[in-house]
């Protein structure tokens, strides 16, 4: 290619690459990362740390769901189930291995990845051949089955009571390593940082996946399946690939979640509310944006944290009206209405809408040089 003048596309790409480290987006990412790292030192409140850890986990889980829904255009109702599979892998291995060792965590992670990959391949191979809708229905049925299995297979999962377990060595909640600059170094804090590292790695992996050639093919399939087929891409394989990849990441998120809580039960990691939460987050953040996951997860998790206060407010405002109290108890109802409204009127979510605006501005600049 030497001696050839670069094409306009190549020139534009080079220009963008040169600006890579000065873009506002990059600076925001850097600032966010710094906050996450320094957070526990600056604000030694367990409530905040708990919130941030959950937001990180769900941001990645939602982003991986976005790979399936937003980038591939198929609906998987089993994303919560994969999350649960990961969570139960960690919980069961840690619970049943005495004494628990570091390599058990690694083993659990591998097991989570393996199981979810196999299950995802089987489900998608069966149902993606036909129509994306079949996939939605099959995943819904299988996810419900796993939820019931979590309850019924009580010899393994302890049913409704759930599994509580201890993490090995320095990750154990009881472990303490003195203090550094006034911050208590303990098992909790180290799990937080473990979650931070893994979540950031997974997130970067997701972003790279979307920007890779495979990601571009997926977008092409979503926008026009026939054309992608005509260009010679095996649509089915790409769909299976993205489903498996997204599900696998979800199961790893579940593993992190289990480590953070040291406890799992069928309702929190396998139930429908979890799946609905993920759906809500992805819709609010914006489909097909990956970064929307962070916003969506942050919004919902923060709202969930403050809703009990809202309930107390409702109680004090209408102390006698039983109906209002019941209404305040059912905050999922509010989320549901919010969800329907955003699907109808705000289908691109926060990040999607912002990106559209930026794109319009950019085009306008190009139009008037």
């Amino acid at each position, binding site marked *: 290619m030497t001696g050839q003048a670069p094409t306009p596309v190549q020139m534009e790409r080079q220009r963008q690459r040169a600006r890579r480290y000065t873009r506002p987006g990059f600076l925001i990412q850097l600032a966010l990362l710094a906050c996450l790292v320094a957070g526990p030192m600056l604000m030694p409140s367990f409530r905040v740390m708990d919130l941030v850890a959950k937001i990180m986990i769900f941001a990645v889980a939602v982003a991986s769901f976005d790979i399936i829904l937003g980038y591939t255009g198929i609906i998987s109702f089993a994303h919560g189930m994969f999350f649960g599979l990961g969570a139960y892998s960690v919980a069961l291995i840690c619970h049943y291995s005495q004494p628990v060792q570091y390599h058990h965590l690694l083993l659990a992670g591998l097991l989570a990845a393996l199981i979810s990959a196999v299950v995802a391949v089987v489900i998608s191979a069966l149902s993606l051949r*036909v129509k994306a809708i*079949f996939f939605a229905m099959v995943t819904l049925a299988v996810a419900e089955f796993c939820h019931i299995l979590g309850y019924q297979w009580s010899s393994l999962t302890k049913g409704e009571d759930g599994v509580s377990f201890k993490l090995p060595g320095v990750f154990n909640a009881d472990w303490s390593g003195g203090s550094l600059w006034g911050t208590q170094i303990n098992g909790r804090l180290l799990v937080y940082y473990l979650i931070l590292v893994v979540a950031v790695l997974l997130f970067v992996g997701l972003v790279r996946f979307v920007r890779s050639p495979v990601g571009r093919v997926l977008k092409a399939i979503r926008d026009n399946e026939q054309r992608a087929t005509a260009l010679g891409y095996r649509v089915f394989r790409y769909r299976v690939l993205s489903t498996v990849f997204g599900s696998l990441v979800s199961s790893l998120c579940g593993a992190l979640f289990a480590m953070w809580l040291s406890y799992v039960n069928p309702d929190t990691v396998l139930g429908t509310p979890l799946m609905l939460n993920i759906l809500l987050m992805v819709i609010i953040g914006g489909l097909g944006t990956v970064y929307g996951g962070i916003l969506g997860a942050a919004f919902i998790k923060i709202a969930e944290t403050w809703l009990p206060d809202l309930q107390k407010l409702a109680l004090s405002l209408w102390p006698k009206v039983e109906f209002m109290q019941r209404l305040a108890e059912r905050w999922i109802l509010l989320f549901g209405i919010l969800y329907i409204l955003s699907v109808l009127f705000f289908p691109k979510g926060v990040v999607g809408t912002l990106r559209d605006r930026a794109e319009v501005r950019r085009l306008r600049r190009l139009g008037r040089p």
Partner: protein
Amino acid sequence: MDVLNLAHGAFFAWGAYAGFAVLNALNGLGWVETGTLGQGILSVLLALLAALAIGGVLGLFLERVIIQRVYGDHLKQILITMGASMVLAEVIKVLWSPNNQTVLVPLSFTGSYDVMDVVINKFRVVAIVVGLAVYAGVMAVMQKTKLGIIIRAGVENREVVQTLGYNINRIFTGVFMAGAALAAVGGSMWGIFREQITPAMGDENLIFALIVVIIGGMGSVTGSFLGACMVGLAFNYVAYLVPKLALGANILIMVIILLIKPWGLMGREQ
């Protein structure tokens, strides 16, 4: 209708609660638990009627407010009806309670017949008769009447049907209402049969409905009928042998059917 409605389970649950509420109210008059045979039959009929009405009203509301905006977009249909189903289930919890409720059933409907040593639950007979009647009715309307022709044509091409002079939007609203009303009647019958209802019953039954439709093939009433028979039989046999794996057995059937016929038993490739 080419609409994927995941809120169907919610109609089912609403029907059950409507029937429950009516039976409760009538029991205040002494019709249900202590009433005569006539009062018992009448109260069950009223319960079913209430379910029919509530299903129709909910269907009308949902179709007009939400579904009409997402015709032709399956992805949004799935997303939005999932949300609607969640909201409807939550409203049940607000109006009644999140806990199980016991349905009062007229004495004349409990108990069973004893035919040559085979014990048949009385209400089961009613359920089978109503089910067959609905199936025959739906088949007759779809295949033989003008309305059936319009509906089938509208599923294929709304625009052409409109230009032939039919207000397809109104017709589809009606069809959706009918579907919702039938689901609600099914729900109230289920409630009377089981004598217990929960807000989550919609979701549980939706799974069965989905498996039935996947096995039978979408858009085929006969296929659904076949699928329902298979699912029902398998569920009962396995539930008898290994109760915990009953749903698993159905999923296994679904998987096998999808392997052999990816479009379902009676489904046609589109």
